[in-house]
C-alpha cells in the first residue's frame, strides 16, 4: 500500500470522464466505487521465486504517470457489417442493457488496485457484439497512445452459435519519457460460440503496461487467445479463461521477445469448472541483452470438472548470458478424472544446432536468427489470423536483424 495516487486523483475527475461519455448512473457509481476502493486494494500478485519478487509494481510512480483528463489516442475500430464494433461512447448509447449485463462480470473491477484504477479512469474502449448465428472475421482494433496515460476497456459478447476473430493492437504514437497503458478485456462467449482474440502489444520501450484479459465460456463455447508482447519497459499481463460451460474449450498461445532492459511478467490461467472441458496453453519467448521474463501458467481443475483435458507448455530461449528468465507451470487438480500435462524450459541456443548450420555455409548470425525464428514457429502456426501472424513474424525478424 505504499503507492497511491490519491493526491492527484479526484471524484470530480471520474465524474467528468463518465459525464463526457454520457454514461448512465450505474456506470458512474461503479467507477466511483472503484475509485474509493483504491485505498483498500492491493497490487496484483506478482510472480515470486525464493528470495525474489520478479516485478515490483510499487516502484512505479503512479502519481506522475496517471493523467486521467488528458488521454489522447488514435484509434481504429473496424469490422464487418453483421457485427457491432462500437466505440465505448457509442456502445453506451446503443447497448446499455448489454453493458449492464456484462461490464465487470468477468474481471471484477475491484479485483486489485490496478483493475480498480482502470475501471475508475478508462476513457476509451471497444465493444464487439456478435449476434446469434453470425460468423465474422477481421474485426480489427488499433490503439495508438499519444498521451502520458491511457486507460482502455474492451468487451466482446458472442451470442449462441456465432464466431468472430478479433485482432487488437497497441502501439505508441507520441512518445514520452514514461507512459502508462492500462487495458482490461472481457470476453463473454455464449453457447456454442467461438472467439479468437489476438493481441499484439508493441508499445514504446519507455512505457509501462498493465493488462488483464479474461473470458468465460458457456456450453460448447471456445475462446482462443493469442498474446504477443514486444514493447514496453515493463509489462504485467494476465490472460485467462474460466471454462464455465460443459464441453467448452480454450487455447492460450503466447509469444514474447524482450531485449534491452525490458521486463515481462506474464500470467496464463485457466479454470476448469465444468465437465468435458479442454485447455491448451502454449507460450514461447525470447530474452536478450539484460531483459527479464517471468511466466506463470496455472491450470486449475475444479471439483466438478469431470473429464478434463488440460495441457501446458512454455519455452524460453535466452539469447544473452545476462538476460534472465523464469517459468513456472502449475497444475492444481481437484478432480481425478483429468488428463493433464505441464512443462516449462529455459535454455540457450544449442551449439550443436548452430554448428550444423554453419558447417553448411550459413554464417553464424544468420544461423542464429533462423534458429530463433524457427523457435517461434510452433506458436505462429497456431495463429489463425494471417495479419497477426505476419505482423508478428515481421517484427521478430526485424528485431533479430537489428542485433549486432
Amino acid at each position: 500500500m505504499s503507492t497511491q495516487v490519491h493526491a492527484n486523483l479526484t471524484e470530480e475527475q471520474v465524474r467528468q470522464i463518465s459525464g463526457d461519455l454520457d454514461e448512465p448512473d450505474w456506470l458512474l457509481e461503479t467507477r466511483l466505487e472503484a475509485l474509493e476502493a483504491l485505498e483498500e486494494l492491493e497490487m496484483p500478485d506478482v510472480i515470486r521465486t525464493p528470495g525474489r519478487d520478479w516485478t515490483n509494481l510499487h516502484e512505479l510512480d503512479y502519481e506522475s504517470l496517471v493523467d486521467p483528463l488528458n488521454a489522447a489516442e488514435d484509434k481504429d475500430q473496424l469490422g464487418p457489417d453483421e457485427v457491432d464494433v462500437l466505440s465505448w461512447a457509442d456502445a453506451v448509447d446503443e447497448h446499455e442493457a448489454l453493458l449492464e449485463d456484462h461490464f465487470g462480470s468477468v474481471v471484477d473491477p475491484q479485483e486489485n488496485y490496478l483493475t480498480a484504477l482502470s475501471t475508475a479512469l478508462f476513457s476509451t474502449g471497444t465493444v464487439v457484439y456478435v449476434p446469434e448465428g453470425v460468423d465474422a472475421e477481421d474485426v480489427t482494433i488499433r490503439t495508438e497512445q499519444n498521451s502520458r496515460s491511457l486507460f482502455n476497456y474492451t468487451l466482446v459478447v458472442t451470442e449462441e452459435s456465432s464466431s468472430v476473430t478479433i485482432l487488437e493492437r497497441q502501439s505508441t504514437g507520441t512518445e514520452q519519457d514514461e507512459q502508462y497503458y492500462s487495458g482490461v478485456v472481457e470476453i463473454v462467449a455464449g453457447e456454442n460460440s467461438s472467439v479468437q482474440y489476438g493481441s499484439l502489444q508493441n508499445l514504446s520501450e519507455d512505457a509501462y503496461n498493465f493488462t488483464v484479459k479474461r473470458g468465460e465460456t458457456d456450453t460448447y463455447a471456445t475462446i482462443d487467445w493469442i498474446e504477443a508482447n514486444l514493447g514496453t519497459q515493463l509489462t504485467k499481463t494476465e490472460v485467462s479463461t474460466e471454462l464455465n460451460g460443459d464441453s467448452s474449450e480454450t487455447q492460450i498461445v503466447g509469444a514474447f521477445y524482450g531485449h534491452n532492459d525490458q521486463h515481462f511478467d506474464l500470467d496464463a490461467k485457466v479454470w476448469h469448472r465444468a465437465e468435458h472441458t479442454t485447455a491448451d496453453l502454449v507460450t514461447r519467448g525470447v530474452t536478450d541483452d539484460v531483459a527479464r521474463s517471468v511466466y506463470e501458467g496455472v491450470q486449475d481443475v475444479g471439483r466438478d470438472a469431470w473429464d478434463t483435458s488440460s495441457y501446458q507448455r512454455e519455452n524460453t530461449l535466452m539469447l544473452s548470458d545476462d538476460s534472465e528468465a523464469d517459468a513456472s507451470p502449475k497444475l492444481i487438480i481437484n478432480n481425478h478424472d483429468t488428463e493433464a500435462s505441464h512443462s516449462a524450459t529455459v535454455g540457450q541456443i544449442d551449439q550443436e544446432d548452430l554448428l550444423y548450420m554453419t558447417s553448411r555455409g550459413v554464417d553464424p548470425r544468420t544461423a542464429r536468427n533462423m534458429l530463433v525464428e524457427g523457435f517461434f514457429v510452433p506458436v505462429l502456426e497456431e495463429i489463425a489470423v494471417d495479419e497477426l501472424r505476419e505482423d508478428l513474424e515481421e517484427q521478430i525478424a526485424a528485431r533479430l536483424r537489428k542485433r549486432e
Partner: protein
Amino acid sequence: MARLELNNLHAEVAEGDEKILEGVDLEVESGEIHALMGPNGSGKSTTAKVIAGHPAYELTEGEVLLHLEEDEFGEEIEIDEDQRTWDLLELEPNERAALGIFLAFQYPAEIEGVTMTNFLRTALNAKIEEREELFEEDDGEDEEEEDEGFESSPMEGPADDGEVGVAEFQQILQEKMEQLDMDEKFAQRYLNAGFSGGEKKQNEVLQAAILEPSIAVLDEIDSGLDIDRLQDVSDGINALRDEQGTGVLQITHYQRILDYVEPDRVHVMLDGQIAKSGGPELAEELEDKGYDWVREEVYGTA
C-alpha cells in the same frame, strides 16, 4: 583439384584435458574415396569434427590444410597463387564450408521451424557469397561498411535475395531429390525434425549433393540404414565423386557400405593416430579379423 592435408594433428576436449587425437596424418584429394575405420573411441569422429571446426575441441598441435588448384571453383572465382593453401584451423566453420569442406554428421541436428528448402537455399547462397568474399581482391577494404548500411533497412530480409533464386533452387532441389529417390515432401518439412535415422542420413547426402563440396567427410553415414537406403546413399556418394569430383573421407565401422562405395584407400585409426593404411583389401581383412591384429602389428602387443 583440392587436397585436404592433416599433419600431426593433436586435439583434446576443450573443457578438460582428455587427449583424443595424438598425431593424425592424413591426405584426401579430389576424386578419391578414403575409408577411415577403427574401434569406438579411437578418434574417428573427433577427426571429422575438428575438420569442420567443432568448438568443443582444442587443437594443441599440428595443422589442417586445404590446398586448392586455380580452377577449383570454376572460371568465376579466380584463385591467386597466394590463396591456394588455407589453414582451416584459422577459419570459422562457415568459411571452411565456403572453401569446399562438408561434414555429414553422425547425428544430424533436428531444427524445428526451419524448412529444408529455406535452409538449403540459404546455405547455398551464403556459401557462394562467403566464397566471393574470401577470394576478393584486397583493395576492396570498405566493402564491410556498405553491408552495415544495408542491414538497417527494415524491409531487407534474407528471404529473397542471394545468387540462387527460389525457382532456380526448387529445380536443383527436385533434381537432386529424384536422384536420391527421396520423396518431394521432404522439401517442405522442417530440417531433420521427426526424420527417421535413415531419412536423416539420406538428407545429409542430399545436402552434400546440393552444396557440391570439394572434400566431404561422412561420419558413419551408413549406420542405421536399411539395405534399400544404403543403396540410395551409396549411389549418392558415388555420384559426388564421379560427377562433382568430390574427395570423400568416409568414416565407418562396417565393410558393408564399402561393397557399394569402393574406397581407393583404407585407414585404420587406433588411439588417436592412423595406425595403418592400405588398399580396399585392408577393409576386408579388418572385417574378418577385427582390429586387434592391427594393434598387434603396430605395437607388437595384443
